[in-house]
């Protein structure tokens, strides 16, 4: 699946997007963030305060307990500040 990062999540991870294949026991958005946080210093920093990070699966806002099965594109970003 493809991951996208925006705003300070992108800055901390150090990339705009990447393709990943998490292990089968990573089932939800929250579990995916936890798994990502263990992938290295920059990920640990980006996902250190996971409660404030929002996610979208295939361009729809989702909650942390949403299953990631079947997702093509998952995005992580801070709360939106448009308008």
């Amino acid at each position, binding site marked *: 699946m493809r991951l996208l990062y925006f*705003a300070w999540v992108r800055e901390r991870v150090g990339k705009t997007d990447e393709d990943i294949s998490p292990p089968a026991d990573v089932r939800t958005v929250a579990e995916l963030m936890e798994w990502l946080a263990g992938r290295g210093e920059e990920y640990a920093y980006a996902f250190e305060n996971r409660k404030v990070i929002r996610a*979208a699966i295939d*361009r729809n*806002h989702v909650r942390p307990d949403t299953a990631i099965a079947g997702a093509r594109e998952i995005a992580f*970003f801070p709360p*939106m*500040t*448009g*308008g």
Partner: protein
Amino acid sequence: MNATIRLQREDFDAAAESAKLSRGRTDIGALVTFTGICRDNESGHGVAAMTLEHYPGMAEEEITRHVKDAQARWPLMGVTVIHRYGRMTPGDNIVLVVTASAHREAAFEAANYLMDFLKTKAPFWKLEERPDGKNWVDAKSADDEAAQRWRT
């Protein structure tokens, strides 16, 4: 229903967009135009410029969903939403919402509703250039509360 949704780097002409919705029609009684503008001051500190980052694809889809919601809630004859991205300096236009209806309440409420959702749900992020460096703008709880009032 006439709906225009655009994300663009370039400036927009609020007057021309608003005129486009009403020109040649005699059934519109109320036209509301909201323009959001880049300010030189945010909560007491100076802002030299601001860069708007967005999630291409999702931003259009999310705005389209809320425009459809607005059409379902109010009898609208036209809606235009234009949101810019990229770097802006104080005085530059950021966002435009135009709503047209037979009656003023529908036009006012739909424009207000769309702005509340652009602030809290549309995937845009503001990076401010302040005297003390660059800073990602924090989401405001007041904006979340404003969006909450439509959840009935």
